[in-house]
């Protein structure tokens, strides 16, 4: 196990690098896959000094369902934002700041949450508090800021807690 950790400090990063390299070639050939795997072993090994504490556990299956759900949310919310842009006059727009208290601790999980919030139209994650316990989110238009906060917590943060549980 220790030898495995030493050789592959970030197994998932290895996989991603190999897949990205193969996709860059735009064709699957054995030589390129092998070269992708070589890159996937060398790059995490050389850069592991800058990522000393990877998350202890990561459920890939849950991450995939989470990604599909987020892509669906992005498409639905895009239509909503397009509707707001085209029909709401500026005077009727109610933008708001929302403070989301974070239960997540891992920086990787908080990064994914912030990225999800920004990619879902209508909300932008703007800032993190100085100790990392709250996330500042800007909402384009809402009648009920508390509902948006609860929605973020129940829909995204809860699932991310399960992914990194």
């Amino acid at each position: 196990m220790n030898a495995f950790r030493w050789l592959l400090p970030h197994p998932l990063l290895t996989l991603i690098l190999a897949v990205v390299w193969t996709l860059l070639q735009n064709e699957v050939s054995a030589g390129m896959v092998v070269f992708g795997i070589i890159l996937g072993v060398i790059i995490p090994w050389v850069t592991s000094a800058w990522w000393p504490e990877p998350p202890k556990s990561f459920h890939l299956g849950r991450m995939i369902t989470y990604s599909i759900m987020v892509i669906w949310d992005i498409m639905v919310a895009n239509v909503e934002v397009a509707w707001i842009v085209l029909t709401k006059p500026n005077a009727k727009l109610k933008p708001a700041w929302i403070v989301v208290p974070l239960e997540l601790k891992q920086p990787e999980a908080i990064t994914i949450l912030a990225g999800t919030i920004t990619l879902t139209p209508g909300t932008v994650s703007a800032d993190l508090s100085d100790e990392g316990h709250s996330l500042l989110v800007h909402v384009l238009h809402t009648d009920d800021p508390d509902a948006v906060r609860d929605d973020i917590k129940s829909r995204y943060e809860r699932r991310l807690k399960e992914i990194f549980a």
Partner: protein
Amino acid sequence: MTGEIILTYAIAISLLVGSIFALVGAIGLLKFNDSMTRLHAPTKVGTVGIGAFLLASMLYSFTYGEGSMHELLIMAFLFVTAPISANFMAKVNIHRRACDTPPEPPRDDTWSTLNVPEEDKHMEGDSAKPSSTAG
């Protein structure tokens, strides 16, 4: 043969959807009059607009060419980098006080953008004004 016709229509519809969303993004950028709300239109509507364009490109390459998967990479890199640029623009807005002051965080002292390091405390208050001491 019918398959090719269906795919041609699918490509056309993807291009149309992409153009509509790109147009709405541009309208939003022009219409909103506040730097924070303006951030919403192009960063978001853009992702689906570009996504539809890339889907059209992929369908086209599989219908008429050898097939291409580069679009998946473009999409992945776009999804990873778009939130970071949006976050930086938001941070600049907060730093320059170009928007409403955000509410205080409940459990911590302040937001990290507004946090002033100990050695810069004597310059407090200057950050809102454009610096005249430069040069």
